Structure formats: C-alpha cells, structure tokens
C-alpha cells in the first residue's frame, strides 16, 4: 500500500499530458477559494456571531431552560439511535456478506432507501402511517400511545434516516475480508460468540466506529424528518437543530448562533475522529 503511494507521488512530479503549471495553480487556487468561502468562513461566522454580544450573554443563552432541554432531547435521541443502528448495521452486514439467499441483492439496494429519500418525505411517511388520522395511529391512540409529535416519533425517524451508515461501512470491508478467518476460528473449536468477539469484531472495529461516528453526527444534526414529526413544542419535542430555527424565527440571533455553535463544535469533533479512524483503518488494512 505505502509502496504504491510513494511510486504514484513520484510519477506526479513529472509533467504529464495536460499538466500545465498555470492550470495546476489556477485549479488549486479555485479549490481553496471555494472551500474557504463556502465552508470555512461560515463556520467561523457561527462562532463570531455567537460570541458577538460577549461571553456572558453566550453563557446565559446556553443555560436557557429551553436550550438545555433541547440539548437533553438531542442527546437522548442519539443515545437511543446509535446503539440501535449499531446492532442493526452489524446484523445486516453479517447477513448480506456471510449468507447467500434469494432477495439478497434486493436487500442490499433497500438499505440505501434512507439515502435516496428526502428526509422531509421520510418524516411525512411516518406522520401519515403513525399519525392520529391513520388506522395504525388511531389504534395506538386507543391504547394511549402517542408516537407522533412526541419523542418516540423523533427517535423513529432518526433511526430511519441513519440506519444505512453502519451497514454501508461494514459491507464492503466484510466482503473484502471474506469469511475464511471466521471459518478458521470455528474449525479451531471457537463458539459462535467467541468467533464474533475474538475474530470478527477486531477485524471490523475501526470501520464500525467510523459508522457509529457518522450515525451519531447525523442523528444529532437531523432537521428535515424530525421537524415534520416533532410538532416543535418548545421544551418538549424541540431538538437542537429545531431549536436553532425557532430562536432564529424569534429574532434571537445570538441565541440561535449559540445553539448552532454546539452543533458546529460536534461537527468539528466528528471530523477529527473520522480522520483518525480513517487513518487507523488504513493502518490495519495494510
């Protein structure tokens, strides 16, 4: 792997067809300009705006009752979604990479539905299916179970939106690794659990963590689907992204940006962890 890389970089120093120095400089310049103006500057602006009225106000906004509730709810949603999709993702990846069965290809395509469907549509789907106007919803209502416009609904749509991340990370890796190490473990007398714990899991752990990090980031930041099923009840069904919008609509700019810094900080942390995990994964692959 590393040999391959060094030989490639050596080649790229030589001039190839179409590789004009001015063209290269122009493209590199453009790339930095775009990344700067579209990604970096807005990110800095969030922090600047949040702190524009001073650190005290920032702190007051952060310790606002509704903000704290939104943080709590967002963490609850993530805490439920991540383990659920972790288990689901591992099972699914195991199923499609270790077994041959009719419908396997269709299943692999179906995994991608949440990526293909607009989150708002996903939210609407859940609302129509489990809302009080539907047959399922009214049955639930009769049994005093409210899913829509309550936290269970938020968890449900978040699970839907984030379910492909772990499986998507694991499937190509597990396909590439094949099952012979697992078979070797079994032939040496390992039980199913010993095989999973001692052979499968160590082989997929970095990809698994990577999937978890992505799942978490999306679960915390999801707006579209959640906004449809949440009902935006302040202090009850408001997650952090929804809270940002609500404050903004209240003309509380500093407050909105304060909450936004939390999401931005999480995003930056995710990036760091993701880069580290990608690096580790490459290390363990080579």
């Amino acid at each position, binding site marked *: 792997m590393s040999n391959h890389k060094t030989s490639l970089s050596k080649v790229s120093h030589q001039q190839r067809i179409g590789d004009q120095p001015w063209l290269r400089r122009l493209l590199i310049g453009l790339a930095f300009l775009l990344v700067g103006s579209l990604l970096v500057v807005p990110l800095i602006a969030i922090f600047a705006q949040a702190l524009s009225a001073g650190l005290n106000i920032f702190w007051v906004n952060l310790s606002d009752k509704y903000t704290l509730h939104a943080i709590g709810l967002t963490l609850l949603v993530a805490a439920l979604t991540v383990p659920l999709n972790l288990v689901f993702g591992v099972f699914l990846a195991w199923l499609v990479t270790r077994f041959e069965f009719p419908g396997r290809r269709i299943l692999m395509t179906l995994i991608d539905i949440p990526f293909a469907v607009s989150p708002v549509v996903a939210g609407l789907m859940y609302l129509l299916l489990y809302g009080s106007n539907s047959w399922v919803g009214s049955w639930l209502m009769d049994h005093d179970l409210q899913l829509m416009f309550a936290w269970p609904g938020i968890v449900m749509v978040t699970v839907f939106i984030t379910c492909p991340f772990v499986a998507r990370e694991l499937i190509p890796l597990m396909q590439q690794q094949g099952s*012979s*190490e697992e*078979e*070797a*473990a*079994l*032939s*040496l*007398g*390992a*039980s199913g659990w*010993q095989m999973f714990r*001692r*052979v499968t899991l*160590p*082989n997929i752990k970095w990809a698994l963590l990577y999937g978890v990090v992505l799942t978490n980031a999306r679960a915390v930041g999801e707006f579209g689907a959640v906004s449809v099923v949440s009902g935006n009840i302040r202090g009850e069904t408001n997650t952090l992204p929804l809270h940002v919008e609500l404050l903004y609509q209240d003309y509380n700019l500093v407050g909105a940006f304060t909450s936004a810094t939390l999401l931005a900080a999480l995003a930056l942390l995710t990036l760091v962890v993701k880069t580290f995990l990608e690096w580790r994964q490459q290390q*363990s692959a*080579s």
Partner: protein
Amino acid sequence: MSIQIKQISKQFGDFQALKPLNLTINEGELVGLLGPSGSGKTTLLRIIAGLETADQGQILFSGKDVTKLHVRDRKVGFVFQHYALFRHMTVAENIAFGLDVLPKKQRPTKATIKQQVAELLDKVQLSHLASRYPAQLSGGQKQRIALARALAMQPRVLLLDEPFGALDAKVRKELRRWLRNLHDELGFTSVFVTHDQEEALEVSDRVVVMSQGQIEQEATPQALYQQPASRFVYDFLGGVNVFEGQASSLANNRLEQGKAWVAFPDGYKPATGQLYLRSHELSLSNQPSATAHLPLTIKAVSLIGAEVRVELEPLGWQSQDLWEVVISHSHYNTWQPQRGDTCFAQPQAGQLFTSNENQPLAISWTKEQLLIKTA
C-alpha cells in the same frame, strides 16, 4: 482416524458441485484430491471438515457418523488456501487460539499454552517470529504458521486446501517435502486439494482425480501414471499428444489418418480411436521408420533445464493441438533441429482409446521390436 465418504452429493443452485460419490481414506494415509477448478475437490474437502453441509450422504470418521456434527466438534485441522491467519493477532496468539477458546475446564493453564506454542513454533522452525503479525510474514512462513495453528489441537485428521498454491516454485518444493515428513512423523490422516499434478504425484500415498463433481480415478501415483483410467486423467496429467485414426484398409496392423500411420506391434489390433502418446514416450528422427509414419514440422525448440522441448505441427494430417516431444540435450546437440524442419515421430509406448471400450489399450513398442522392424 479413517474417513469414509458415502454417497455424498452437493448442489449450489443449478450447479451440481458433487455427484453422489464414495471414497474411503485409510488411517494414516496422505491423499491428494487432484482436479481442475470447478471439479468439486474443494467442496468435498470442506464437507469432510464440516464447513459445508452435504445435500445427501454420510461422512464417517473411524466408523462413527459425523455427518451432522458441527465443524467445531469434528476436531479436524483445516489449513485454508490463503492461510486465514487472524490478522490482528501475533503469530503466537494465532497458534494459541484453539487452546484459548477451550471451555474453562479443559483449557490448559497459561504457562502450559505458552509452552505448547513454543514447541509448535519450534516444530515449524519459526520460533523467532512469535511476536510478529501475519502481515509481516512471507507466504511460506504464513503457511507454516497456519499448519502450526491447526496442529495445536492435535487433530487426527488434517485437511489442506491448495496448501502450496500461492507460493513460488522453490518454497513450494521445500514445503511439500516438509509436509510429507511431518505427516510421517505425526501419523495423522491427511487430505489435501491441489490442481498441480506434480504436487499430487510427489506428495500423496494415493491420488484421487476429480472432474465435474465425480471421481475419475483413485490410485497410487505410480499406477495413476502408468494406467490412466480415462482420457480425462490422461489429459490432466499433462504432456500428451493425440493421434486420431482408423484401422487401415491396406495393412491390418496400421492405425491411419490420411498419409500418416502407426503400425501396431504383433498381437495388437488397431481400431478406430485416439492413440495417446506422452511427450517423453516419443522420439524424433529425420526418417520415418517401419513402425510409424508421422511427419511433423518443427514450430519451436525450447531448452528448458534438463530437457529440450520441441513443438511440432502435423504435416499432411490433423491434430487438435500442436504436438510436443521432449528430447535429451545430447540428442539435440547431434541433431540440431531448426524451426521449419520436417521430422518424423516414433512412438515407444501409448494407449489407444476406442469409442466402444471404457478401458484404454496399452501398447508398447519394445526396443527389440523397433530394431527388428527398422533393420
């Protein structure tokens, strides 16, 4: 432990990987399953191990039915084609794995495990690599570690899937001998899969040739080479030239095709069919002899190690493939064949496959006969 395979068959979708087959492997025997890819040899090996389940039939270990027994309870050593070493464990941890996962009651103490691992590493002569990871080993080293790992459980049956397939020629040769010695020393029953006929003939006590999910022939290497039971076996063992002809109407001892012919020695009656002639059981000369008239044009001459290979094209008759004849260096030096030259082939031994006989007819032109006829 002896292995008995009774009417085992296996189907993957539309593909019949194994047709019902029977095979008995005796205790302490080293058997090679030889065949081209897709012949079912690996499937059979995996069924013996319990990594694959048969659709029908039974597997018996020393008379005991193990057909329904899970792979972890069969206690066979299995060496995988690409070694399947646990990549996140060191060499020592790999070898200790089987002992580490034993139930608490049967598990040896940490110190005992450590000592057993050291002994195994010593046996495969790789003690200095104990703390390395598989990615840091060469192919031959990985193969030895994979073997040591399988041997840690002291299996009575060792199964090896293409054990030397991914190694270079020299290492392969060394490891073959080493495996043979190890087998003789430890006395377990071994079955290994290979597509390399040389490997199968060199290592095995008995070779089982497979094709299209069936056993074509099972025999000792010597018998297999001397009496191939079918065209397939003959072809698969390699280096064979085919002369397709019919009984001549002119001379009753000749098999002919166009102007080319081969005269059979006394006592053999030619019949329409294919005469199989191995590349080292033919000689070449500038003149036709009294027993054969097989004109050929030299297409290529290659000097490979101890022998000289001559590639030839039939002249005035047909053959599906080019012919290949092996001659000695001394013959080459006196003869000096050139590309484009015409020469004549003279068979010394061969087998005639006819359409109505299952068994081929072995024919040999003894030196005396050749001398008398050519004189």
